Every structure is written in structure tokens, then in C-alpha cells.
């Protein structure tokens, strides 16, 4: 293949990457964070992820029909090799971009053949964990990782930065503010959210994402080469793919083809079908046009293979079985109470932990910033699963967006009418804090906001000794547990400053909390 043709293919590949990355973010943004928006397609990338098909099959013994779409890229891989990583994956595209930006640091560095095995070990661990009922695939699955990082870090951080830099434009006075005003207004109308969103795990998730980006300085496409379990799955299949690169007789053995190769291999001496991302960089670097792109029936490779060997294979399976039991022998798995609630439509806790891929789709679309990624509230294996935090938001009565975007139906697809009746939990009054009990004066902000048409929060006139020691008549609030749906707006709007006087709890939640 001539350099010219190579460059053409390379450009095609880059265009494809840009296109799919743009599509990924377009779906996320278009699905948006408004309860009145009915476009909800941000989950569609996940259905093309065979790793999730596999993990959900193991964990739930069921095939979710939409996930059968992921067989398309899997079958195509048999023909084209790991084209998905090189041409489609948005996470891969971001890695490629930073590999390029950091080329001065990573150019001279070899990509260790031993370390390439790491992602296969990760894949084995993830599968073994799933067999043991713990779902960690989402930690490193590229779509989950990217969606989660976008929802809890990238998007709120961009918002904050924009708001802080343009804030002066809000005042309208002074030269700076006056000239900033149109830009500020434009950003307000189209980019900045009404309220800055905040997430409990921003620091941790952000640090991990940043580290993954910066690791591209150490090695090219670090994440894709070493960490990605989906890449590993494609790699296993790509071993048998038809497509491969080869050098012809004009090759002068200069090995320039390894210069920009994502895994620092080369068609000349170190070609690995399982690692080649079909990026066509080698064809643009070859000064002699010696590289051939061919479709040949699979035959045994007589070069370096990425082979774990029996010891490592058995070792990682055994250690995975052992490690997978660790989160399940923590108190969280046997306690009868739990300090968190799950989004409306969530399945029983055991099933939830098996199905949820921690992708943060629900967290991203929640219009009020209610959903938060957990740390250890839901146990060690519940990290980054969605829990409700009424301190940051409330469940909007006229909204069921989280139920519409959950790719694995850990949050079942329920209609708006079903959701309005779904009992997330029950509000409980803290009588030591509620103004109408503790201080003896009227408040009832919670009653006002209670969205249940029959009002799950009501008040009755009761004589109370107030904070001045006088007996006064107070409109004292009370909760009717059977009517309460646990939306948490009462806790969210409670005007008490130290801690809310009414708390949303998991009491009487509709889903079963059964292990």
C-alpha cells in the first residue's frame, strides 16, 4: 500500500472516530436533564457492547434482547479485527487523541508485551466476579467509564469553569461586565445549567479519569492496551480475524512502521492481530509502501503471541473467585436495615447489584441532581451504583427519565404513571428537629411541596409548648406512610439549617431488599 493510500485510510479512521465520539456525546447531551424532554437515547451505545451482554448473561442468566445488537461488532471483528477499538469506541478516540498530544513523552517508549496481558487478566477477573454475583465490569468498561466520568465530573466541571469565568457578565455594570454580558447570556441560555450540579464521588471518579488520560504519557493508548476488558474481549476474537497487515518483499527492515503503532508493534516483525487496532498508522509511516492490508483465512501466527499460559489463567481465576467473595462477606450483605434508597423502578437489591453496570446514565439524566454515585453506602461492591441524596435534589413527580435510560434495566422501564405510584421509600419526621414539634411554630414547607395529589404530608392543629415556653396552637405536620412515595422533596426543601427535620428513608420501599 502506498503512503498516499495509507493516509487516506488513516483519515477515514480519524473521521469515523470523530463521528462516533460526537454521536456519543450528542446522545448524552440531547437526552439532557429536563423532565419534560422525551428524547432518551443516550443508552444506545451500551447495546453494542458485547462485554455487557456477556456479564449480564452470567449474572442474570437472561439475554436482554437489545444487547444482541452487540453481536454485530463482535461478528465484524472476525472479519476486520479490532476495528471497534480503533474506529468506533469514543473512549478509544479520546485515548488516541491524548496519545497524539503526548507523543513527545510516549514516542520512545516500548509497550511491554507482558503488560498487554493485564487486560486479559482483568477480563477474566470481571467474568469470574460476575459468576460470583458481583458486577465490576462497569468499573473499566469504556462506555460506563466515560458516561460516569462525563456525568459526575466533566460536565459539572465544564459548567463550573464557564460560570466562574463569565460570572462578571451577570452584573451588567462596569466595562468588563458589560462586555461579558452577551457571552454570559449566551452561555446561560444554551450551556450552563440552572444550578451547578454536584456529586459525592467527583473527586475520586475525576482522579481516575485524569489518571487514565495522563497515563498516555507513559505508554501509548495505555487504557486500551492494558486496562480495557472490552478491548480484551475483542482481542480474543480478533485473533481469528481475517484482516491483517503484512509486509511484502520491498520491505527494507527499517521498522519505521512501529513508530506510531498503538501497541508499538509492526507488521515487519511484531504483528499481533489481537492488539492491532486497524489504525493504519503503519501504512503512513512506511517509506517504501511495503505494507499490505489483506483478508486471509486465519492461520497460525508464528510470531509473539499474547498467551497467558495455564498458570496465570488458573491463578487469576482462583484469585478472582476468592476476591469476589470479599465484598459479599461485609456487613452490608447481611444487615436488615440500609441507609440508602434506590431510584424508582429499581429491582431488588441483589438483582440490582448484579444488573447495574455503574455507568451513571441515570445520574446523568436526573433533572434535579438527586441521584448520586454511592461510595460504600451500599456495600463495597455497590461503589458508584446510584443512590438518592435528597440534600442535593428530589425525585421530580412528573419525571421517569432514569427508568428510560438504564441500559441493563437495573432500573426497570416503567411508565410515568407506574413511576408516580412507585414507592421509593417513606419520609420519617425527626421530631427533635422539625420546627412544628421541636420549636413550636408553623412551617409546613414539606406539606406544600408534597407532590402526591392526596398529600402524604398533612398537618393538624395541635397545642404545643413553644420555644418561649408558651402554649400555642401549631399546624403540626405528619406523614401518611401508605401515601408517601419517598420522592424526598420534603427533605430537600426542609428549611432547617443544621439537618433536615424530615428524612427520606428506605422504610416500606416497594422493591424487596433481599439478598
Amino acid at each position, binding site marked *: 500500500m502506498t503512503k498516499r493510500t495509507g493516509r487516506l485510510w488513516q483519515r477515514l479512521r480519524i473521521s469515523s472516530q470523530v463521528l462516533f465520539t460526537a454521536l456519543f456525546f450528542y446522545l448524552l447531551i440531547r437526552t439532557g436533564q429536563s423532565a419534560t424532554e422525551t428524547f432518551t437515547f443516550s443508552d444506545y451505545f451500551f447495546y453494542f457492547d458485547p462485554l455487557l451482554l456477556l456479564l449480564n448473561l452470567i449474572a442474570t442468566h437472561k439475554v436482554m434482547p437489545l444487547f444482541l445488537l452487540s453481536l454485530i461488532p463482535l461478528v465484524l471483528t472476525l472479519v476486520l479485527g479490532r476495528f471497534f477499538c480503533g474506529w468506533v469506541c469514543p473512549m478509544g478516540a479520546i485515548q488516541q487523541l491524548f496519545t497524539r498530544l503526548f507523543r513527545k513523552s510516549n514516542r520512545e517508549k516500548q509497550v511491554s508485551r507482558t503488560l498487554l496481558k493485564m487486560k486479559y487478566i482483568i477480563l477474566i477477573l470481571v467474568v469470574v466476579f460476575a459468576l460470583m454475583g458481583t458486577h465490576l465490569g462497569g468499573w473499566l468498561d469504556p462506555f460506563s467509564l466515560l458516561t460516569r466520568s462525563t456525568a459526575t465530573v466533566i460536565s459539572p466541571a465544564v459548567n463550573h469553569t464557564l460560570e466562574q469565568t463569565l460570572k462578571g457578565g451577570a452584573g451588567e455594570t462596569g466595562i468588563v461586565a458589560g462586555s461579558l454580558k452577551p457571552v454570559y447570556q449566551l452561555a446561560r441560555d444554551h450551556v450552563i445549567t440552572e*444550578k451547578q450540579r454536584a456529586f459525592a464521588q467527583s473527586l475520586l471518579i475525576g482522579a481516575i479519569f485524569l489518571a487514565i488520560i495522563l497515563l498516555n504519557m507513559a505508554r501509548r493508548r495505555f487504557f486500551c492496551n492494558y486496562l480495557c476488558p472490552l478491548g480484551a474481549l475483542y482481542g480474543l476474537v480478533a485473533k481469528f480475524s481475517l484482516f491483517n497487515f503484512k509486509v511484502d518483499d520491498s520491505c527494507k527492515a527499517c521498522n519505521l512502521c512501529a513508530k506510531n503503532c498503538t501497541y508499538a508493534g509492526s507488521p515487519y516483525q511484531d504483528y499481533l492481530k489481537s492488539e492491532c487496532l486497524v489504525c493504519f498508522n503503519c501504512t503512513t509511516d512506511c517509506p517504501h509502501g511495503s505494507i499490505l492490508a489483506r483478508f486471509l483465512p486465519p492461520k497460525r501466527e508464528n510470531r509473539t503471541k499474547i498467551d497467558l499460559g495455564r498458570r496465570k489463567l488458573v491463578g487469576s481465576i482462583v484469585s478472582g473467585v476468592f476476591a469476589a467473595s470479599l465484598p459479599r462477606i461485609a456487613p452490608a450483605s447481611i444487615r436488615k436495615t440500609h441507609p440508602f434508597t434506590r431510584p424508582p423502578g429499581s429491582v431488588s437489591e441483589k438483582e440490582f447489584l448484579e444488573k447495574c453496570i455503574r455507568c451513571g446514565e441515570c445520574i446523568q439524566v436526573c433533572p434535579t441532581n438527586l441521584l448520586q454515585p454511592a461510595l460504600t453506602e451500599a456495600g463495597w461492591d455497590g461503589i458508584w451504583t446510584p443512590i438518592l441524596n435528597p440534600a442535593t435534589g428530589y425525585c421530580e413527580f412528573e419525571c421517569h427519565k432514569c427508568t428510560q435510560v438504564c441500559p441493563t434495566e437495573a432500573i426497570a422501564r416503567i411508565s410515568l404513571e407506574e413511576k408516580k405510584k412507585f414507592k421509593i421509600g417513606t419520609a420519617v419526621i425527626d421530631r427533635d428537629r422539625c420546627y412544628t414539634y421541636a420549636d413550636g411554630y408553623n412551617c409546613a414547607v414539606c406539606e406544600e411541596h408534597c407532590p402526591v395529589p392526596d398529600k402524604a404530608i398533612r398537618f393538624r392543629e395541635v397545642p404545643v409548648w413553644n420555644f418561649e415556653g408558651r402554649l400555642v396552637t401549631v399546624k403540626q405536620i405528619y406523614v401518611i406512610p401508605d401515601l408517601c412515595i419517598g420522592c424526598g422533596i420534603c427533605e430537600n426543601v426542609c428549611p432547617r439549617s443544621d439537618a433536615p427535620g424530615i428524612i427520606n428513608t428506605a422504610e416500606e420501599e416497594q422493591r424487596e431488599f433481599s439478598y
Partner: protein
Amino acid sequence: MKRRDFIKSTAAASSALFIPATIAGGETAPASLVARVSGESPYDITNKAIELVGGMRKFIAKGDVVMVKPNIGWNRTVEQGACTNPEVVKAVIEQVMNAGAKEVIVMDHTCHKSADTYRRSGIEEVAKNLGADVRHADDNRLVIHDFKGERIPRWPVYRDFLDVDKFINVPILKHHGSAGLTIGMKNLYGILGGVRGKLHRSMGASIADLARGFKTDLTVVDAYRVMKRNGPVGGRLSDVELKKTVLASANIFEVDMVSVDVFGETPERFEFIQEGIKRNLGIGDLSKINVKTAAV
């Protein structure tokens, strides 16, 4: 700036003239006249009500920047009667524009997320189609305003509400758990930022303080669909009653008095009315208020 200066100067002028503070208030009560119009079309009866109180030109001067402040608090549909009827808002905006206003701004500090309430209430669409500037409450634009009230001395207010020449209040009449009813005076909560829930402690006094400490040029009350129970958020259609009425007045207190009557209650029952009488916001006797009634 203009409004704030005005409030300051009136306060200064009145104290200089030794007028008792109770009469001067923040504002002097305008001549009472309340229009009460019923009819099939919310749009037509709004126009009629404005006509009966003297026409929009009486309130709006050419080149004015005008704030139209409906109740857009909740993510509820028109039929549920939690937000001001968009047809009423439409009529008001049209009238303001026809009176020669330079700019019309529509805004509310909502209870539910405003992106949703603006859209679901239908008000955003109506206002944008007419070319009004639909703004969302922006905490960067909060300034401390001195209401000189008993319960609310100083409180953060979105400057959008202060930096205009005229303020038109377009509330909806509905049931309200802790206040009893929410009409024009209570609708002024929507100009406030901060933790408004703290004001629920003595709600009647807070509402009356707001009405006294903030000048409203015209109040148009939507009493077309009236939520009779489970307010202010409601949601159940069976709680909504068709009253097919719109009221208008330059006096926010008196239009509230008459609206209570439309609701089917006696004004004296409500704390915020009592507090309003104490503050001399208008005629505290329903039978003495000058009401012009019409049907379209």
C-alpha cells in the same frame, strides 16, 4: 436601579413629611378599583379586566422596561391549575407591548426546576412567541433588598425584578396549605432568592411585608381554573374548579380580598389578609371595595 431609587426616595419623602409610617408604608395605596370579569375565554376576560381598570396605557409608559411575573412555580399542566394560565399571560404581554413598552421580561423563581415548569405550564412558549425575554432565576444576579418589614427586613432578590420600570404581577388563585390561599401578595415570593422556606414561620406577616416593601404597578389574578384543595402543587384534576374569572387592580391587597371572595371564602379568615389590614395596604372591608363586575 430605578425602582430601588424610587422606593428609597418615596420612603425618604414620606418620612420628611411626617406621614405616619403605617400609612406611607413602602408605598402609598393606589385608588381602589378592582375589576372582576367572568367569561369563557381566559384571554378575552383578561383583556376586559385590564380595560375596566383603565387600560394598560394607564400603567405603562412608552419605552418602559416591564416585568411580567406569573406564577410558574410547578411542573404541572394548565389543567392542573398550579401555574398561571398561559392565555392570561399572553393577553397581559400583548397589552404591555401595545402600550409601547420597550422590553417585556417574564420570570419567576420556581419551586420545581424552571426548565420544566416554564415549558410544561405553556408560559414559555406563549411569551417567546410574543418576543418577550424569558429569563430563569440566576443566583449570580441576587442583590439584598430592604423591604423594611417586620418579618422580612432585608432579603436577597433577583435584580431582574428591581431593574425594571414597571412590575406586573400575574398570579393564579389557588389553595395553599400553610397560607390558606395564594394570590397576588403571596406570588411576590417568586422575586426572592435564599431559603424562602424560613419565612413560613410567620407566613402571613411575611406575605404582607412583601406586598408593602415591593411596588407592584398592576396585579392581574387568574381565577379561571381554581385549585380548591391540596395546593399549592396539587395535581389532581378533581381538585380544580372552573371559576372562569380574571381580576385586575392596581392595588395588590384589594384584588386579593376580592379574589378570596371568588374562591368562596371570607377574607378575614386569612392571616395574610389580617396582616395586610394591619399594614394599611388597602380597604380591609370587602363590602367597601370598589368592584367593577363584568361578563364577556
